[in-house]
């Protein structure tokens, strides 16, 4: 790179490059457009992958529904309570027609991992899904 335009301001009074910024960083591209501003919140990708969950064969309630929970899926940084910073993007997880009438899909947060719980009216139904673990 021939030239870097980087504006940084810290919250300590001992160092401040620009007096109108209080925190964060601004980055401009070659066209002079602001591509990163101090109010921006930019998602970062921590993990990406695919998973599956099976509804099981044990009926519950009337009419019967079946509920299963996936195995642990690694997501470094996640905790049960930090949903304001770490969250999972779930894709392609609506079951096919006929299996969604009592459908419920729940994300269970753990420490450095998560699981999903899936409920349906179909016994032994395997639901495949994709996920992206994001930090933001």
């Amino acid at each position, binding site marked *: 790179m021939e030239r870097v335009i980087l504006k*940084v301001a810290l919250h300590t009074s001992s160092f401040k490059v620009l007096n109108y910024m209080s925190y964060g960083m601004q*980055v401009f591209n070659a066209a002079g457009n602001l*591509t990163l501003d101090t109010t921006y*919140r930019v998602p*970062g990708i921590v993990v990406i992958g695919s998973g599956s969950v099976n509804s099981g064969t044990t009926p519950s309630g009337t009419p019967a529904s079946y509920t299963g929970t996936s195995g642990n899926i690694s997501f470094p940084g996640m905790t049960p309570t930090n949903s304001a910073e770490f969250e999972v993007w779930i894709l*392609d*997880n609506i079951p096919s027609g006929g299996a969604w009438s009592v459908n419920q*899909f729940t994300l269970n947060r753990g420490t450095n991992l998560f699981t999903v719980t899936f409920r349906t009216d179909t016994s032994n139904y395997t639901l495949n899904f*994709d996920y992206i673990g994001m930090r*933001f």
Partner: protein
Amino acid sequence: MGYGIEVYNENGNLQFSTGQESLTVIDTGTVANTSAVDYNSANEILFVRRTTTGHIDGNTSKGGGAGGIDRWTNSSEATVEYLLVKRTSQRAQDNSSTYGIKVFKSNGTSLQYSSGYSKGPKLIDIIPPGSTQSFGYPNDYTYKPVLYSGSLTDVWYGFGDMKFTLGTIIFQGTYWNYTANTIQALNQATTFTYPNTYTWFGYPNISTLFILQRTT
């Protein structure tokens, strides 16, 4: 993190980290009612918006697009705009790389972050599965949860999965209200009770929902 830098914005939210790669906008366009847009969900996330009051409904098809990638078919009864974002490591820069800032992965070539993209995504909210609930008839918006409230200028809606069958199913649908400046969630399906009664039931959102704003 053991190496590198992290920057937080003025609200304490992550603005930039050398520990994770970020996302960049790769394509925008329009998709007419009943037409489709293809995307690769392994690397890309599809977002949609509309510029007038009304619904956004449609159907996702995993592997149903050209070449076996994914497809979203518009059932909104209107043309809507779409936007694709992609992982920075999977996307070449489209702006001059002689200015700004670039951060690479340890392999020295895959981008974690770059200002060399002409447009980028700014996260507004990410809504996990099971956290919203719709009630009532689809066109009664009293009991539809508000996903977003504020200016709808360049605001986009991302959904992990979407299903729509007229009069039967609305999963991950939305209602864009340009009078109230809100986006509301619609997750409902009908259940038939013999001999002739159809009742709409509300559901929690099944997939993760994403609200973002395009930058520059």
